[in-house]
């Protein structure tokens, strides 16, 4: 009986030891926190322009690098960011706020790529410009139909910049939730 007890104790302590003494950084400490960076933006699907108020769809893929420098598995719980198009040099108009709730694990000490596809359309962009972004449109004296048509004609070459801002990725880890803000611009130059 005593032998069995000692044997079971050894096994349990070994397992405790293996699971509680992981090597590497904690995901909750600054150096071990995950990092999210915008790698690139791709046009995932493109449709010929039809004049407003008709609706022309546009699907964009946002490819992020997700670096996990910690010694722990981390799970992306949700991610959201705001997409802005450049309306004039260094002046951006907010277009959409994609949010994603697909849960995915990132192993320790890795950098993985993660893509979010967001489908927008010209009619919704027009509404956004008329309502939420109207103060900027008025201040910068923008012509809404011309601006949107211009974006659609130039996006294949990324002849204007697209900004990702107000980004927030929430990761679940064994050590608690980690909040990672991020932003980026594509193309970078």
């Amino acid at each position, binding site marked *: *009986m005593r032998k*069995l*007890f000692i044997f*079971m*104790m050894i*096994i*349990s302590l070994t*397992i*405790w030891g293996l*699971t*509680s003494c992981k090597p590497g950084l904690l995901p909750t400490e600054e150096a071990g926190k995950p990092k999210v960076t915008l790698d690139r933006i791709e046009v995932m699907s493109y449709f010929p322009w039809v004049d407003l108020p008709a609706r022309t769809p546009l699907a964009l893929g946002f490819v992020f690098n997700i670096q996990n420098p910690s010694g722990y598995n981390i799970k992306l719980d*949700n991610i*959201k960011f*705001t997409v802005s198009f450049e309306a004039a040099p260094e002046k951006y108009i907010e*277009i*959409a*706020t994609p*949010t994603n*709730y697909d849960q995915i694990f990132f192993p320790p000490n890795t950098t993985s790529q993660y893509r979010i596809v967001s489908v*927008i359309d010209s009619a*919704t*962009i027009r*509404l*956004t410009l*008329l*309502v*939420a972004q*109207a*103060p900027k449109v*008025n201040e910068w004296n923008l012509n809404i139909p011309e601006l949107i048509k211009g974006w659609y004609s130039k996006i294949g070459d990324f002849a204007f910049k697209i900004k990702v*801002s*107000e*980004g*927030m990725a*929430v990761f679940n880890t*064994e050590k608690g*939730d980690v*909040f990672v*803000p991020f*932003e980026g611009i594509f193309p970078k130059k």
Partner: protein
Amino acid sequence: MMKKRINLIVIVTLMILGPFGMLSFAQEVRLGALQDTTGATSDVGKDEALGVREAVQYYNDMGGINGKKIRLFQYDYGYRVPEAITTYKRFRDYDKVVMVLGWGTGDTEALSPTINADKMPYLSSSFSGHLCDPKKTPYNFVYGTDYSTNARGAITYWYEEVWKKDPKWKELREKGVKPKFVCFMDTASPYATAPIKAIKDQATILGFEIGPDQHVALTALDTKSQVIAAKAFGANLVWHGNTTMSVSAALKDAYALGLGADHIINNWGFDENLPKLAGPAAEGAMGLLACALFIDEYPAKKTVIEYCKKLNPGVPLENRLIRTVQGWVKVTLAVEAMKIADKAGKLNGPGIKDAFESFRNWDGLKKFGGQLVTITPTDHRYSSVVRVGRVIKGKPQTVGEIDMKAKFPDKWDSWLGW
């Protein structure tokens, strides 16, 4: 001997499984949220969406629903009713949510038959009075004084505090003239039109002369023809039923064209942005407030700001609006109902509905400047108290409250569902 051995095995097994138990997921409570961050009401919707997300995180940090984590699914539907209906089906069939936080009047009313058939509690940012009669919409709930009560309260408050007292109207008052009243709203928008029947009824009760409705689109940038029509009628008071952007356009045109009328504004058209957008044209405008303004002092302000910074550090605090606080009010009410339902062992549609209907003068929203909440199985109007604000020296602020049930006790019951 045998008993000792069993105990030993149980203890050691627990010791072995202990660490794995820590790795397992806690139980989740799934919550859906429809938001407008890109559509015709995105001028107010984007900020509310931020508040909802931040509040959910706060309650998760505080232990969720009695230890169960809230998993929020929050989607933009661009104020498009078909998209709202499709997203609702995803909530119901795949995300398996226990309740939905809704947004617009059009989509909430369109979804009402479905959510009631599904027994899905639906707490909406549409405070349409049509959603408050549980005989018709038993699973619909609102988290602010309903539009119709608000509209009745606004016109009553103006009549008593401004028309009867303000020197501006002294001459007309003394001549015994009836105040002339017109409505500016998007006549194609269920949100904007929801309280029109009620406010006209109240105008008739108070003895106003009612002029022709003026159609102002939610996306309007120019409302000169509507202002000219109101001026031709000789309006003394204008009701604005839209959201902030188009209300500000109407105020600016009214100011520029010298309309001379006073303005009362529904709650989604009155916020910190109004004086920023309309400038001096907003001065003196009155509007309805569902809770404290973001710029106000209220007990939960420190927590609200902490979570603004924690979850959305990229959004400047000076751009935040009352809508953030409204998001917190909405989530706080939902969380309380879910906690009650969970404690009763009924964290499901009927259980959450029963929990909502158990609120009696609940003061949990006071820390956000909300009202005491009473919801019963026969009346889903959240409160009878109307909070009135006014733009004074370029800033919106609360100027008074009016309890419509106390003021019109003989009519209150008959107003249900207007």
